[in-house]
């Protein structure tokens, strides 16, 4: 949207884009503060919070003990009483320890209070398969949060999106779970120097095409883009739609693309069963059934925990070749 406000052209890393968003929002609003494990002096495991302590001081940037449920709850309490906390949970796998605070508490207050309370909290975390991080540090768990009314779910795939969406998330008056991907932090992309915001609920067409729509988010987007490149050489024109936020979901952009291409492939890193892909597929069948030419295909992770062994790790989540194969299946309806 505000892409035309480009002041200078520059490329920065995903992690630096997030860092800029935090700095800008903390400078703009002194109610924004950030806490998490090793985020202050150390600047976070993925260097997203580097320099924040120096700039904003230890009242607004501080390390927590390893007490996820407790400090997330404390974030929620602060949010309920006027602050705008950004709470970091190192791995999405560890959000399993904070489910009561997030789901029974934060997600419910606006509703239960008859719209007299709100929880403007951002829970930053990261998920996905890395390199040999095994079953308890590799999960993609967005579907769990997607399922909960009252939570927003954001999953940026590029530095540009990461910055604009994190700023929107911090300004959002409701709890947002902001899920980064561990393999994206060092990816570079164009990010304008000036201030911009990407509203939640706006999908982005990462590549335009005419033959099929591939829907993907987070760590799968770069893989899908690679696949689309190869497909193009083989004469198949894929349109890549990145919803960017899963809640709210930009159905319009998805449906419009589907109407144009009449073929749909959804690619998700998360285990196939009960994933967000299934829900998007059902939305497409409900709202664009007459337009689609072949069954909506979902390429997901295998329904299994992630193995430690590196070769097997590759087997459990979609790879570029798998995406290409699946795209052809959709096009040729084989």
């Amino acid at each position, binding site marked *: 949207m505000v892409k035309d406000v480009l002041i200078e052209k520059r490329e920065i890393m995903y992690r630096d884009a997030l860092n800029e968003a935090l700095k800008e929002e903390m400078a703009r609003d002194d109610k924004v503060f950030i806490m998490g494990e090793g985020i202050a002096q150390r600047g976070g495991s993925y260097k997203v919070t580097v320099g924040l302590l120096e700039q904003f001081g230890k009242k607004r940037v501080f390390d927590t003990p*390893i007490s996820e449920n407790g400090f997330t709850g404390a974030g929620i309490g602060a949010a309920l009483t006027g602050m705008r906390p950004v709470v970091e949970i190192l791995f999405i796998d560890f959000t399993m320890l904070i489910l009561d605070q997030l789901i029974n508490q934060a997600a419910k207050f606006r509703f239960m209070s008859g719209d007299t309370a709100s929880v403007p909290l951002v829970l930053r975390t990261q998920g996905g398969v890395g390199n040999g991080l095994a079953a308890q*540090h590799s999960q993609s768990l967005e579907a769990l949060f997607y399922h909960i009314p009252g939570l927003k779910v954001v999953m940026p795939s590029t530095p540009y999106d990461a910055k604009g969406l994190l700023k929107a998330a911090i300004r959002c008056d409701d709890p947002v779970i902001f899920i980064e991907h561990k393999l994206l932090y060092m990816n570079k992309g164009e990010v304008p120097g000036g201030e911009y915001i990407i509203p939640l609920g706006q999908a982005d067409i990462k590549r335009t095409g005419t033959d099929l729509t591939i829907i993907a988010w987070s760590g799968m987007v770069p893989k899908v883009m690679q696949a689309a490149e190869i497909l193009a050489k083989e004469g198949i024109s894929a349109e890549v739609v990145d919803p960017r936020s899963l809640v709210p979901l930009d159905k319009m952009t998805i449906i419009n693309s589907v109407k144009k291409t009449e073929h749909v492939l959804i690619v998700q890193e998360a285990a196939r069963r009960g994933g967000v892909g299934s829900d998007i597929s059902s939305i497409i069948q409900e709202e664009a059934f007459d337009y689609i030419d072949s069954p909506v295909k979902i390429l997901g992770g295998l329904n299994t925990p992630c193995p430690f062994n590196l070769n097997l790790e590759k087997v459990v989540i979609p790879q570029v070749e798998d995406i290409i194969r699946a795209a052809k299946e959709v096009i040729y309806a084989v």
Partner: protein
Amino acid sequence: MKKYTKDFLISLYTTMYKIRNFEEQAIKLYRDGLIRGYFHPYLGEEAIATGVCAAMDSHDYITSTHRGHGHCLAWGADLKRMFSEVLGRENGYCKGLGGSMHIADYTKNNLGANGIVGSGVPIAVGAALGISIRNEKHMVSTFISDGGSGIGSFLEGLNLASAWKLPVLFVIENNQYAVSTPIEESTGETELYKRGIGFGVESIRIDGNDVIEVYKTAKSFADRCKNGQGPFLMECITFRKSGHHVNDPGLYLPKEKLEHFKLHDPLIIGKKHLTSSAGLSEAEISEIEKQAMAEIMEAIDFAVKSPEMSEEKFLKFVEEY
């Protein structure tokens, strides 16, 4: 001091020496690109696992942490299968599916390392609950570090064991750091054994780098657990000799502490016991070390040559998931 047999003192030292060298060799394999993912060495803390496990017997159980190689080895694991696991090979304890952070031997009552800080504690309490219901005279030791002592799982587990009078020994390996966070920043009460007292659990703080002191304390608590007097808690003061994991240089660790613990090292102290109490000569000790090292090198050779699980076999294994 109670006199320990020469063989016993040798076995304690050998275990510590193997842990130290398992880690150092594994770090080399890591640097050579043969091991990936998280790898948290137990360097500098060898006396704790060694002393505690020596005080237990094979019907007892342990739960470990993300820093789990020491516990695994001290519990009696086979070096070949350990190296195979951290290298992701099918001969490993978990067929290469678990790796360093999930190494376990459920067939021999090692309930495993854990990727989630604190989560082994309630599981240990559950194992003790089973022991209690079955009226057995066994016990469970659960390891945790200073950082983990602030998490709900630990505090709830401690309270449950206390309320139900279960045969659990809580072992806090207080290495004074949780990644880069010093203990003073994560709690207002840094004498962690007092957490046990707060829950009505008899608790003590000891030097965790002296294997004899660890053993003595653990032995008395383990025996009393088996007599129905548990639970107990022992806080073992120690220090990490290196970064949090292989890729962390640990630059935040204060020099004075590193220097202090360089001399106050579990292996140096263990060696003193061998020379002073067991009367071993330097030559005899280096012979013991040579043998242990040969075992380690043989295990590495075995592991490096071991196959990985095939894709077909893996897909078959996960078919029903």
